[in-house]
Each structure stands twice: as structure tokens, then as C-alpha cells.
């Protein structure tokens, strides 16, 4: 049995870089993205082999699934843009060129490139050699975590590290996600999906069947996260997948979510996390120092809110832009500013 697993490990360890190479060398961007998704799935197999089930879940859902969906939708958007600009003939030649892999495009290899490649490979060889020579420090923080597990309020060690011992990291991490949503919203508006594009009966049934199930699974993952693999990130990813499915099926309800509600859903997790971090101080502890008896409930509360926000945020990232807000508000602000300036000029 162990031999078989050993062979499996060797194959997987070889296939991962090979796929990586193939996907970057592939002339077709669509194929590259598909290879990227399959690489993500194989990565999650590797995580399972390395006894990292939490990471495996997150990788399969976020690293492969949602990132892949983001890439595919970006690709579609790029192609649509390109199609609309086909008439610009000077661009066309470039397009042909950019679909070629870099190796074929630049036949001549300048000396600087070869030199850089050489230096890089020397560095990597050194790195590899150093990795081989240096043993992993024994134990690291593992024993420290194990020693304090009794006070963490949860049974799963990864969750304990994420939400308790290093909860501040996770707080900032949730802010990164919030920032990404802010960034995407600040850059562009969501693309209008044509009204008449209705999903087929199969997709509609699938949505009706899967979305409630996915929400249940997300809740389960958050719940089980306190004792086993799972947690806010994984649960949020499943919620996000449900959101992406709804967006794909172009369900009317999703399009009509009021923007205020969406904004509150986006910040629910970050806000609650932040407020409970501060609340811990007001009870007399440090920042994020949960009361020892009720730490489990605090963590569950934070995780649930965070999972909702992560789900909404990731789905919003997939939607790829700020929603069409009631134009009135922006217009009013603009107008008042304009009149102010005019008055100022007049005076």
C-alpha cells in the first residue's frame, strides 16, 4: 500500500510542474486557463497527501474553482472586447502575435536573457541544495499550538491558529478581501447581462436543486470547522460558488439585490470581526483576546459572519464591477459640487 502511495506521490510531484510548464507554454489562452484549473485540482490532491485537508478544501474551491471562474470570465470579456475592435486593423496583427507562446514569438535570445536565466538557475540550484541540506526545524510552533489547544475554544488546530492564536492575521486577511472588492468596484461597473438571455431548463433546475444544498454545505463546513477540516474560508468559498451559479444562470433575483444590502453583506464579516476584536478589549482582555470560557462561541459567531462576507465578496469579484447604483445619488453629489464651484467662481 505504501509503495503504491509512493509511486503516486512521485507521479503527482512530477505532473505538477509539468502542467505548470504546459499551461504557460500553451499558445491558446483558454487552454492555459483550463490547464490551470486542473493544476489546482491536482494541487488539492497533493494537499491531501501532505495531510492538509483544510488547505485541500480551500484549494479545490478557491484556488481551482473560483480563480478558474475569474480567469474564464476575464477571458470571455477580453475576447468580447477584441471582437468589437476587430475593425481596427492595426490591432489585429498584434492579436495574432499575442496568442503565440513567448518562446516562438521571440526567436532571438539576447545575451541578457541567457545571463538572467543562468543566474536564476544558479540561484534555484543553491536554493534546492540548501533545502536538501537544511533539516526542517523540529516541532516549530506545533508543540506550542498543541499545548494551548485547551484554551483555544475549538478542537481543530488549524482553526485555532486561524481564529485565535493568529486571529489578527485573519482579521487583516478579511480586510484584503474587502479591499479587493473595493478595488474591483472602484475600477469598473458590472457588465450588463442581456435581459433576454434566459437559462435553459436544465440550468434552472440545477440552480434550484444545488443552491439550497450548497448553502447547507457551507453552513456545515463552518460548523464542522471547529473540530475538523473546514471553516469560514471553505464555507465562504462554497457560498461563493452558489453565488457564481446564480450569476451564471442570470437569475432575476440576483440582479435586483439592492446595492445597500449588497454593501452590508460585503462588510458584515469584516465589521463583526473588528467589533468583536474591540469588544474583547472592553471586557478587559487584549485585542482579540476572547474570554476563555466562551471562546468557541465567539469564534463560531465570527466565522459565520466572515463566511457570509467571503461568499458575497468572492461572488462580487466574479461579477466583476460595482453594481448599477441608483444614479441619483452620484448625480446629486456631482451637481452640488458643480454649483459650489460655479458660485465660487462667480464670487
Amino acid at each position: 500500500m505504501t509503495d503504491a502511495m509512493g509511486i503516486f506521490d512521485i507521479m503527482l510531484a512530477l505532473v505538477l510542474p509539468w502542467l505548470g510548464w504546459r499551461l504557460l507554454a500553451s499558445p491558446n489562452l483558454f487552454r492555459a486557463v483550463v490547464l490551470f484549473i486542473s493544476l489546482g485540482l491536482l494541487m488539492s490532491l497533493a494537499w491531501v497527501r501532505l495531510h492538509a485537508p483544510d488547505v485541500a478544501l480551500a484549494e479545490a474551491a478557491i484556488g481551482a474553482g473560483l480563480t478558474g471562474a475569474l480567469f474564464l470570465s476575464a477571458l470571455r470579456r477580453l475576447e468580447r472586447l477584441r471582437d468589437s475592435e476587430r475593425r481596427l486593423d492595426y490591432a489585429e496583427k498584434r492579436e495574432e502575435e499575442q496568442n503565440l507562446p513567448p518562446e516562438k514569438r521571440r526567436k532571438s535570445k539576447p545575451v541578457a536573457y541567457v545571463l538572467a536565466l543562468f543566474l536564476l538557475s544558479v540561484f534555484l540550484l543553491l536554493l534546492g541544495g540548501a533545502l536538501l541540506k537544511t533539516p526542517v526545524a523540529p516541532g516549530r510552533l506545533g508543540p506550542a499550538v498543541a499545548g494551548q489547544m485547551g484554551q483555544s475554544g475549538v478542537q481543530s488546530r488549524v482553526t485555532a491558529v486561524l481564529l485565535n492564536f493568529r486571529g489578527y492575521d485573519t482579521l487583516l486577511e478579511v480586510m484584503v478581501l474587502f479591499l479587493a472588492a473595493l478595488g474591483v468596484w472602484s475600477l469598473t461597473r458590472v457588465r450588463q447581462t442581456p435581459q433576454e438571455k434566459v437559462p435553459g431548463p436544465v440550468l434552472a433546475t440545477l440552480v434550484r436543486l444545488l443552491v439550497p444544498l450548497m448553502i447547507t454545505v457551507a453552513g456545515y463546513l463552518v460548523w464542522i470547522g471547529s473540530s475538523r477540516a473546514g471553516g469560514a474560508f471553505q464555507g465562504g468559498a462554497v457560498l461563493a460558488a452558489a453565488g457564481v451559479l446564480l450569476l451564471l444562470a442570470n437569475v432575476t433575483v440576483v440582479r435586483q439585490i439592492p446595492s445597500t444590502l449588497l454593501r452590508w453583506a460585503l462588510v458584515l464579516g469584516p465589521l463583526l470581526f473588528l467589533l468583536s476584536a474591540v469588544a474583547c478589549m472592553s471586557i478587559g482582555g487584549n485585542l482579540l483576546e476572547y474570554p476563555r470560557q466562551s471562546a468557541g462561541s465567539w469564534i463560531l459567531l465570527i466565522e459565520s459572519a466572515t463566511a457570509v462576507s467571503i461568499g458575497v465578496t468572492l461572488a462580487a469579484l466574479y461579477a466583476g464591477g460595482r453594481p448599477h447604483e441608483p444614479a441619483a445619488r452620484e448625480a446629486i453629489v456631482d451637481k452640488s459640487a458643480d454649483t459650489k464651484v460655479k458660485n465660487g467662481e462667480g464670487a
Partner: protein
Amino acid sequence: MAFLHNLGTICILIGIPFFVSGTIGLLRFPDIYTRLHALTKADNVGLGFVVLGLALQAEQWNTVARLLLIWLLVLVASSASCHLVARAALRKKIQPWSRS
């Protein structure tokens, strides 16, 4: 217990050729429709056998239930995505392959 375990192993072994043939079909068949056919049909049967085998080896009932749920979900997902891919291909006016 050992009997059930062996039976499970046999089921898994039966499932593997289906996966292999599905994959060969994916690689060797001429057009998208036939490839979809190979992929979904053969793989679903293969997965059924593997799940059955694992369920026979499982030690707890809730593991069996979860395995069953996984199998059902994969069935739903693969048939739905097969349908969607085929529909998209038809919309793009990709002609089904014929021997002529």
C-alpha cells in the same frame, strides 16, 4: 468484515477500467459530442463502482451516506455540465462528427 472489505476492493477494481476507458475516449474520440459521451457515461459508472466499493469498506453509516451524497452530486453535476457544454457547442454551430 474481511469479506465485505474484499468485496469492496473488487468493486473498486471493477470501477477502474470504466475510468480508464472514459479517459481514453476523451483523448481519442473525434469530436466534442462523442468525447462528452465517453466522459460522462463511463465515468459515472466507474464512480458508482468506486463509491460502492468504498461504502462496503466504510466503518460508519454516516460515511456511507456521505459517499452516496457525493455520488449523487457528481451525477447531477456531470450530466448538467455535459448538457451545457453540448448546448454551447450546438449554439456555436459545431457539426457532429460523422464517418463520411
